[in-house]
């Protein structure tokens, strides 16, 4: 690393805040942590004595587990709060809950919340480092970083690659962060899905909207499918999952248009048969499980870096 570069971020709120240099630094750091997860004793003392709180207002299995495993492998003390067991059920405001936590002096608070901007709100009221594990439909930075790590590992680079993302772009924080991350590093991001899934001014984020899934997937180096949520009551976006899978699902027929060595990705959990067919999800080009493995490494890197990149070595 060049002397002049320093990772300056105390909070991880979104990909938007990062420069390309920041992202490469995080990925390189993640690389160096990756092998820890392969040791017989999967532990380093780097974050020993640090208190890390997982503050999850929305249900999550993989992300929370991933952060918890990352923290514990670095010897930190971790604690979990979920919305159902928190005093939010007693009507306590987010800020009050956070301030009460703050009074117990956690080093890092990892928050997932259904309101876009909730992590940003917290940074204005408490002193701990805040890591965004997904806020509303805004960003999910650690997911995008592990996606970038996976692609870089397999392809050797990000710049110049064609990335196709298919699904509900408008309501996907994963898509937002991925679009920002991949385009920041010089990839060409193309998205596809029904028009009801496309937010206005997508080009501003860095993606091109394609008329069809086939167009998006043609010559793609990476094909990423997003999880289709069950129909929303308040907003009729698609008529049925059946129709979605017929016209927008990733299947092997569609993949013929992608490059033969294209990577298949999905943030999980997968609705098998809806946005992606099982044979594609389980096929030889799928790197979905590598994404999960890299997720632990990326999260170890983020925890390490917000603590100043110092700690017991």
């Amino acid at each position, binding site marked *: 690393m060049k002397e002049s570069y320093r990772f300056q971020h105390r909070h991880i709120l979104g990909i938007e805040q990062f420069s390309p240099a920041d992202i490469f630094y995080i990925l390189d750091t993640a690389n160096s942590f990756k092998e820890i997860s392969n040791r017989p004793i999967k532990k380093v003392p780097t974050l020993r004595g640090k208190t890390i709180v997982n503050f999850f207002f929305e249900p999550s299995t993989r992300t929370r587990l991933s952060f918890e495993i990352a923290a514990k492998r670095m010897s930190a003390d971790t604690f979990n709060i979920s919305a159902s067991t928190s005093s939010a059920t007693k009507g306590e405001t987010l800020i009050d809950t956070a301030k009460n936590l703050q009074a117990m002096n956690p080093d890092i608070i990892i928050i997932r919340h259904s*309101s*876009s*901007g909730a992590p940003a709100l917290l940074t204005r009221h408490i002193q701990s480092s805040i890591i965004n594990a997904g806020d*509303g*439909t*805004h960003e999910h930075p650690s997911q995008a970083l592990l996606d970038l790590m996976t692609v870089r590992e397999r392809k050797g680079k990000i710049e110049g690659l064609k990335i196709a993302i298919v699904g509900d772009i408008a309501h996907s924080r994963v898509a937002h962060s991925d679009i920002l991350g991949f385009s920041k590093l010089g990839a060409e991001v193309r998205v596809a899905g029904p028009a009801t899934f496309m937010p206005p001014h997508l080009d501003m984020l860095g993606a091109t909207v394609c008329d069809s899934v086939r167009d998006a997937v043609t010559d793609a180096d990476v094909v990423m499918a997003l999880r289709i949520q069950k129909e929303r009551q308040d907003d009729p976006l698609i008529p049925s999952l059946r129709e979605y899978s017929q016209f927008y699902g990733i299947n092997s027929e569609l993949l013929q248009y992608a490059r033969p060595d294209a990577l298949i990705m999905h943030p999980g959990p997968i609705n098998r048969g809806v946005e992606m067919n099982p044979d594609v999800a389980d096929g030889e080009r799928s790197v979905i499980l590598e994404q999960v493995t890299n997720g632990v490494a990326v999260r170890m890197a983020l925890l390490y870096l917000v603590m100043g990149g110092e700690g017991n070595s």
Partner: protein
Amino acid sequence: MESLIILQNGRLLDPSTGLDARGDLWLQDGLIAPVGNSIPDNSRVIDLDGKWIVPGLIDMHVHLREPGEEYKETIETGTKAAAVGGFTAVVCMPNTTPVNDNASVTRFILEQARNASARVYPAGAISKGSDGEGLAEYGELKEAGAVAVTDDGLPVFDSQLMRRAMEYAGSHNLLVISHSEEMALSRNGSMNEGIVSTRLGLRGIPAAAESIMVFREIALAELTGQRTHIAHVSTAASADLIRQAKARGVRVSAETTPHYFTLTEEAVAEYDTHAKMNPPLRTEADRQAMRQGLQDGTFDAITTDHAPHSVLEKEVEFDRAANGIIGLETSLSLSLQLVRDGVLDPLRLIEVMSTAPARILQVPGGTLVEGSPADVTVIDPDRKYVFTKDSIVSKGKNSPFIDWELQGKAVLTIMGGRVTHDDLP
């Protein structure tokens, strides 16, 4: 208290007569009096050194929160804020608790306003409880003192009800004010649908949510031949519809607010809830259209939609924050900027802030003609100041203009001959 106030050497601006000239104004026994030959004892004489003397400003869209939400604002504190802002009269919206859909609540408000710092003209509800189902009793409301009816805060969803409201309000000579919002399009939205909402991951409210209902209100006004007033216009699309309707002779009037002609959706920045209101801040093109609309007569009035909230409602996640900002104390400064920017000349500014509201509401005021109530505002258009949070008189401190350097202020506000605000040097 002096029975005679003499304002000397000011710039008299009276849109009701087209007067724009240097001169004096005499106020006696609560009325505008003829200028006398000699100055009696026990009169207060003030040399204004060129400051503007205008008819008292009138804000026809204010939320005073009383009865029911006195922790946010009361009639007393809200009218004090109004006086500081140069207003001598306000129309208070009926979305109180209970809703002002009957004579008792109207009478209560007027009773509370008896010693207030500004005249309070209550607006009653269009429907009982503002539930959008049946008409409220307009005859009783009018008799009790209401000047208009509106379900503000909510649109009237049922077009037949709105049609009947316009007709029946016409029978009782009440103005129907429309909060124009197609709620199916705005559902769960918290800011304008566009570039910024995409970037911030917030559900957006498209401009069409407003213009669709503006179109409907215009069509109903045409159908019934009654008059209607469109509240808080925020989009160019709505402005175009209103302009065309006026050209056709439809009896429609409209208002916009300082935040719509000063700010855009960019003010939301990093989820600043002091930039959250309904309708939301829009694009730069819409902002320009608001200015254009004031200039070309599409809009008749500047109002504030003064909506005080406490930190309880604002210091939360953006999508959960209450809609609205205060506005009484900054409206004049922000509106004077339109004069400095060459958008409005001084007479036109005072017209949209005083004379036109009085005419639309059919209440006294908006004029400096002899015999009129002594509702007068003295404006120092050059006074520069920083709008600090500590200086805010309203109970609500929810303003996006805090710490802004502003220019132009009401330095003396007189209502019915009584000084309600004095900031003369």
